């Protein structure tokens, strides 16, 4: 049943219509993908072994980069904020300034961006290769849900590991600020940590916590979706990987702004 041919004059309209339908269809499929994942996550059988493997893959193997970026972010912040505050004679507030910047904003955002670059891209490529080599089809025809085996463990691993890695980033970052502010620039240790204790409260920590959980869902959702629906062979895998990293990074920043506006 071939489609009827469209008169030449209406072709641009047809192209526009097809494009719009394509966008709506993609958004619908993107949403349905998460819906299916949530459905599979709350119904047995649960794939605990796959979850542990994903936690290792997403979390443990990203530890080094989180520690490194956390330490240097804290050190840069320590130096720059110290130089700024010293102009006003307010160096004493270095501790809270570093801690609040890291806990509320930089910790969750930078940790998520780093994990996207390291684990998210690899996850998209892995699922993409499984798609083009028919491994995902093989699971489907074995009557085993690829969603349950491949997607759900990754999204749950994101929910579990992102807050933990953000916490590590925060601790190492604050310590990096301490190294520069206290050990190099001579601020007193009591001032650095004492003022921090006065100004940072549980709300700030919870803001960072909720952000990191939502980033974990966003990154793993985007990266698994892009890998799951790869087409056009090796070029398609490369394209999907780039798209996954770019889209995850943009969504992290947009969502960060949104949460920063609504969370206390």
């Amino acid at each position, binding site marked *: 049943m*071939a*489609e009827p041919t469209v008169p030449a004059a209406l072709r641009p309209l047809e192209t526009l219509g097809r494009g719009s339908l394509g966008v709506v269809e993609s958004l619908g499929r993107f949403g349905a993908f998460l819906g299916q994942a949530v459905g599979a996550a709350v119904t047995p059988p649960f794939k605990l072994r796959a979850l542990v493997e994903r936690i290792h893959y997403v979390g443990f193997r990203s530890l080094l980069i989180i520690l490194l970026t956390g330490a240097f972010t804290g050190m840069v912040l320590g130096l720059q904020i110290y130089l700024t505050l010293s102009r006003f004679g307010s160096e004493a507030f270095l501790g809270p300034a570093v801690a609040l910047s890291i806990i509320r904003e930089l910790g969750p955002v930078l940790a998520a961006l780093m994990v996207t670059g390291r684990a998210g891209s690899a996850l998209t490529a892995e699922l993409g290769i499984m798609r083009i080599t*028919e*491994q995902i089809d093989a699971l*489907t*025809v074995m*009557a*085993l849900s690829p969603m349950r085996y491949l997607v759900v463990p990754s999204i749950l691993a994101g929910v579990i590991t992102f807050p933990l890695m953000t916490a590590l980033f925060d601790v190492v970052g604050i310590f990096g600020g301490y190294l520069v502010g206290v050990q190099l620039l001579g601020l007193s240790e009591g001032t650095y940590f004492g003022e921090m204790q006065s100004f940072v409260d549980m709300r700030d920590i919870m803001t960072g916590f909720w952000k990191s959980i939502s980033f974990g869902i966003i990154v793993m959702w985007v990266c698994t979706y892009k890998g799951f629906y790869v087409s056009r062979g090796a070029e398609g895998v490369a394209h999907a990987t780039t798209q996954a990293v770019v889209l995850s990074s943009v969504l992290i920043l947009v969502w960060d702004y949104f949460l920063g506006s609504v969370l206390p």
Partner: protein
Amino acid sequence: MAGSTIHVEGLWKSFGRQAVLRGLDLEVPAGSITVIIGRSGGGKSVLLKHLIGLLRPDAGRIEVGGVDLTGLSGRALDDVRRRFGVVFQGGALFDSMSCRANIAFPLREKTRLSAAEIRARVEASLAQVGLEAVGNKYPEEVSGGMRKRVAIARALVTEPEIVFFDEPTTGLDPVLVNTIHQLILQLHRQLQFTAVMVSHEIPEIFEIADGVAMLHEGRIVEIGPPAAIQGSSHPVVRQFIRGEPEQG
């Protein structure tokens, strides 16, 4: 084990403006080996994907063992798929698992067999395909022919009623092509499954097929026993089995 019949009626499938299947009809008798032949890009793999429920037709009916696949989804479709084994063109072995783990995977995930029973079944499967020595190797560490044999072992380890083979000998040398064909024939005699195979291997497939169906321009243009197809007067069939170049 008695095989099921596959019955396809009026199957249509288009991708965009291109109609790939155009009212295709096909009948696969229980317990037979039916080979679908046809030009590259003619829709053989698309037909196979419909038969295993990976694609939905635009119109038509696909009945497998008396169950209409076209209206099924989710668990109902999975229940039918449990009766299938599929050997994909590239093997589709899970590259993060050893060959042994690949074969054990469907047993581990789909049955309640004990670890010892699974081990015994996997070893028997490896022996059936002559690969006892490479069980611990990963798919990328074995040759193309071995990968195909592991894929066959994985598809058959659950003793399915129907096995689909998507060009199981593509990319293999003539000796390996015959080896794989003889292996399929031998396993078919032992396990009595219904086999549907997509293949380009002319004339080798005539040795193992009970029925051959020629797919051309989205329809089965001729179907019959190998001798009838070999002696066909249909110009498309004759051109294909003789490998004659296109005119013009």
